[in-house]
């Protein structure tokens, strides 16, 4: 009897996995960088070519790094949420203008508002590669020691911000 039950057993196990699989998003790739030091960079600022922004400038604070571009539609979607976050002042948001035209980026910020403390320009997308960016917008939460604690792939939404990001920021700031 047992060997005749074997196919059924295999099938049952498979159905179990498929059921769990339905709840997962196959397109989302967890970043191996979480828990690791944020890659260093030093890039010109969007509003002032002469100055640079580098990773060390943010040491000692909990901050958000947001990769965006004026050509990216998801960035428009999440923009109001970033503006709210910036207004609330929980943590500074730094922008990374990813593979963009300078004048278009400036115009975009003028039109929709600027939630960023400083915007750095990653014209060639190299810093993006260092951070494992594969689709803007992407947002990183980085702690006081410069370690990446969280990565959001795709636009931020209210639920993620209130349930994940804000509590995480408070926790990291308390340390």
């Amino acid at each position: 009897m047992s060997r005749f039950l074997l196919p059924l057993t295999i099938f049952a196990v498979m159905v179990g996995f498929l059921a769990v699989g339905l709840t997962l998003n196959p397109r989302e790739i967890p970043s191996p960088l979480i828990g690791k030091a944020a890659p260093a960079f030093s890039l010109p600022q969007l509003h002032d070519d002469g100055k640079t922004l580098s990773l060390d400038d943010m040491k000692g604070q909990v901050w958000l790094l947001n990769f965006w571009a004026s050509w990216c539609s998801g960035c428009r979607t999440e923009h109001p949420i970033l503006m709210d976050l910036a207004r609330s002042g929980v943590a500074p948001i730094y922008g990374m203008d990813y593979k963009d035209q300078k004048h278009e980026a400036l115009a975009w910020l003028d039109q929709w508002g600027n939630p960023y403390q400083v915007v750095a320009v990653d014209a060639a997308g190299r810093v993006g590669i260092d951070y494992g960016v594969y689709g803007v917008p992407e947002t990183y939460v980085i702690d006081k020691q410069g370690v990446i604690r969280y990565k959001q792939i795709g636009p931020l939404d209210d639920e993620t911000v209130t349930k994940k990001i804000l509590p995480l920021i408070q926790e990291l700031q308390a340390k």
Partner: protein
Amino acid sequence: MIPEIGHFALILALCVALVQGTLPIYGAAVGNSRLMALASPAARCQFFLVLTAFGCLAYAFASKDFSVLYVAATSNSQLPLHYRLAAIWGAHEGSLLLWTFILTIWMFAVTLFSSHLPEAMRSRILGVMGLVSVGFLLFMLSVSNPFERLIPAAVEGRDLNPLLQDPGMVLHPPMLYMGYVGFSVAFAFALAALLGGNLDAAWARWSRPWTTVAWCFLTIGIALGSGWAYYELGWGGWWFWDPVENASFMPWLAGTALVHSLAVTDKRGGFKVWTVLLAIMAFSLSLLGTFLVRSGVLTSVHAFATDPKRGLFILSFLAVVIGGSLLLYAWRAPRVGLGGGFAPVSREGFLLANNVLLVVATGAVLLGTLYPLFLDALDLGKISVGPPYFDSVFVPLITPALFLMGVGPLAQWKKAEIPDLAKRVRWAAGVSMLTALGLPIVLGEWTPLLSLGFLLACWIVVTAVVSVREQLAHVVGGGIGTRLARLPRAYWGMLLAHCGIAVFVVGVTMVKGFETEQDVRMGMGDVATVGGYTFRFDGVQNVRGPNYTAVRGTFHVSRDGRETALLYPEKRRYTAQNQVMTEAAIDSGVVRDLYVSLGEPLEDGAWSVRLYHKPFVNWIWGGCLIMALGGALAVSDRRYRPAWRREPQVVPANAQLAGR
């Protein structure tokens, strides 16, 4: 109004399917012939109802009725009529309707060709098919109704995904589904036999042609899909081991095993339990394929319509249908007898070994396809399992199967002798070895894989020749022509299908071994040489299609100064979705394809261009076509025709031959 008729027809079809799926099976159990008699009329009625629904949806597409949500989502007023009709199966809801429609076509066919079956058997078969149909109709009516209205109506449709606007779209899905769903007949036969407890030679004889026909459709469907991807996706690949491809390949592998296992059950009464399990497996894998494609649990280049919420419905359905049938199998199969005995070295032995290899290969493909999902579900990280994995696992598993394919037909049933076999194939082996070693050297390059490919292809063909020669010796009288014609069609069909594999292997070997590619920057008048052909770029011009604008490049291809072809690759922008598509240009030939695809525009009117020379690539699909033709030829054998159509005087001789 018309869409509502279609919707209503689906509701009625569900009612009929419920009747068809319950009463005849009950009738067969209690021996009530009035209940059993319901099966055929119910199946036919269901066919006409689903046909009506299908026609209504077709009408909605043809008449550009954008008040139907599904029509508005998958077509556009500028889409040409044939693509509007193909858009019926361009997304989720319509694909399901096509699936169900094809299921009812197969049901209808069963009612037409089953008049000679015992009534209980026929009732059970149609009952099981009716139950499968219930699931799909219920699915459509509850969560994915193709006739759902959009109020207010859209002014313009969102258009069919440009990737799908291709002649391949018209043919590939119906063919593939004919294959997938066709296995439901073998499945229903197997369940009916389990329910009735009459797993005998007659059951196998009846199932065989149905299974073979479904297998032929599936073969052609897969080949069409592969060919379509080859020219449409624009990078010249023909098989990517993508989840959706694997989803169609697994039922094919299981179906191939089933076709062979049925042969043993039919002729020798053996492998009954195994055959039943394979029949369940082949159809289960078809259902699993539908689930994988439709649910979005895996990402794919070919998955165009996915929705995890609906995935839950299909998964539950899958659990009921497959789980139920495997439970029935576990319950009834132990009582089935063993069938005839045979020696380890015998045709049965070889066929069984081949079956094991095919099933192991199916398992390997399944494992590779689902493994990323397993890891993800256990939260152990995300990985990708791609062509390098499948190539390195699949080749060693299938190589012995191809080797056995040569010996199998030569071995006697019941008991064969290795020394005798070895003697009969010695020159076949010699010729194959020589070809394997010599041909790559002649062609100017030697790699182990090249040799292996030529060895297997040559082995299959030469052993087929040996087989024909030996068979002829048994046919008495007449010239060579008449004697050849005397051999049964089933036998020719088998050989042809096997040779199709050989042709396929040659294609794969040649493409993998000798294809060349150039990624170049071409300005006006620049030339590049690939595979001995010189491509000259004569610039681009703008052209307009019915629903797209395009940049079309002109390439003059010449060899030794003689013009071979003019190629016009395009870069199309489809207006409705503002999507850019690369349309490769191909000059096809028996021994090579020349393939040009436009990349991106560069400065000064230059373009980045990809040029490929692909030797023998068409043999890949040609081989599949030959396999399918072989299957068709086998089905046309007179032993499958109802007795009254057979010429009585030929039967004994033929039965003797085929039974040897």
